[in-house]
């Protein structure tokens, strides 16, 4: 199975390739990219150099241009497609209908992947994207069980890519308005969930408070694991009880499901984490490379959960919706 790995910087791209990535996904330093954080991402020249490095080492580069274009301001997205094409990228990961249409018309060399941001989870939706724009791969929304993915794969004739490790979004990818409710910016339009200029941490003797644009969204004790400063992972009072109302701070780990995902027809396994350091990228990619090879060779499973325990959000791991144990 193909291992698709994250890179937020050229150094992380090289780390991913060196650690055994089949493909690396990355994006430009602007609003076309759903990981538009300060200091992160690639200039036009860095993208061309990154593609050259990956190709020289037998890996592919998938460029994420996966935000939704603003009405009347399509130029940034069209430029990003042109630069990705010129850089020699192997595929682009898109979500927006207009961007897909532009890519299909003007950049026929580029393979089109449908971003998880498009939240296409039915055969009808996927067929529409495949028939209309020639989409060849769909990134599965993180709402489906393995059985649901198997049924979906039986009904479509494009490749599917499934997340196996890293951060989780609650169940409305591409449609989440929580960040824009609090800050005016969202991953969907400006490429940032909880933009860092709106995030503040304050430490006192016993705890750390997380504030998002003035709203206190969590407070954790000195010995309590922390998570990302997003509203979906904040703690709130509801029904007289304080709890993680939408989602716990926890990382996805579907390493134990690699064989099942393969059997379900999944083509590629995706690791989340373009905002993470190259230490994370190298370690996670190396571990999952070994895990995939072990499954393919019929050897004992690699203990991914133990090996990567020090890297996970909130100090906890979950198989997420793949098992839907809450049902």
């Amino acid at each position, binding site marked *: 199975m193909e291992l698709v790995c994250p890179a*937020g910087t050229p*150094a992380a791209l090289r780390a991913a390739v060196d650690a055994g990535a089949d493909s690396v996904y990355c994006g430009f330093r602007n609003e076309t990219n759903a990981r538009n954080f300060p*200091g*992160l991402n690639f200039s036009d020249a860095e993208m061309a150099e990154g593609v050259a490095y990956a190709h020289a080492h037998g890996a592919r580069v998938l460029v994420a241009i996966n935000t939704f274009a603003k009405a009347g301001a399509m130029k940034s997205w069209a430029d990003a497609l042109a630069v990705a094409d010129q850089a020699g990228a192997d595929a682009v990961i898109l979500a927006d209908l207009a961007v897909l249409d532009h890519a299909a018309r003007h950049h026929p060399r580029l393979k089109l992947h449908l971003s998880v941001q498009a939240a296409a989870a039915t055969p009808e939706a996927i067929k529409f994207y495949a028939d209309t724009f020639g989409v060849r791969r769909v990134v599965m929304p993180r709402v489906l069980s393995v059985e649901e993915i198997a049924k979906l794969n039986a009904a479509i004739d494009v490749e599917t890519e499934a997340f196996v490790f890293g951060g989780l979004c609650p169940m409305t990818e591409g449609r989440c308005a929580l960040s824009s409710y609090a800050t005016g910016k969202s991953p969907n339009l400006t490429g940032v969930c909880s933009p*860092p200029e709106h995030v503040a941490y304050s430490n006192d003797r016993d705890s750390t408070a997380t504030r998002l644009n003035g709203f206190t969204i969590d407070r954790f004790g000195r*010995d*309590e694991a922390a998570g*990302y400063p997003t509203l979906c992972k904040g703690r709130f009072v509801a029904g007289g009880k304080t709890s993680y109302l939408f989602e716990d701070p926890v990382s996805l780990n579907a390493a134990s499901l690699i064989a099942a995902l393969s059997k379900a027809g999944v083509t590629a396994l995706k690791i989340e984490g373009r905002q993470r*350091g190259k230490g994370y990228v190298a370690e996670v990619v190396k571990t999952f490379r070994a895990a995939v090879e072990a499954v393919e060779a019929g050897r004992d499973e690699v203990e991914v959960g133990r090996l990567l325990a020090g890297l*996970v959000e909130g100090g906890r791991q979950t198989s997420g919706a793949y098992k839907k144990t809450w049902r």
Partner: protein
Amino acid sequence: MVERFKGELPAIVRFLAFPAAFLPLGQALTFAVRRFARRKPAMFDRLGDYGRCSFLIAPTDLDFAFLVVPDGARAEVRTLTRRHGVEADVTVKGPLLVLLGLLDGTFDGDALFFNRTIDVAGRTDALVAFRNAIEDAELKPSDFVGLKGEIAGLLDKWVFRGLDMARRLTGAPMGGEAR
């Protein structure tokens, strides 16, 4: 309960290192960072306007801290003892060996934050930009002392080997372990 990384320097090291705060360490580091900026300007391009922000890097196992303004060829580094009450745009606190591991990419900053090994405060946008710029720069000791070629490789090898040994002695995770 979170399992924090170990790696605090022994108290004797803190005691012995204290006089360093009164040496011209700040000037030496300022000179080194400016030299690095001339050799590898890409890191400072990535940092952009955040280079003019002030970053207080406070090792929890030393009695002094570093105030860094990473403004390329105009960069400044000052050493401050605990008596200095200084305001900075960003504050990062953690064991020295862990903070050095962030500089060379051994550790992942988010993981250190999740497991509470480091504390951060102040402007998160500046901190994120600084972290990402450092991450991409692939910093090596030889970059700061202006060495090139074989001798640079030897210096880097010995410094990284020394850091590995120090991490082993203090119980900090090594490169390749729970980063």
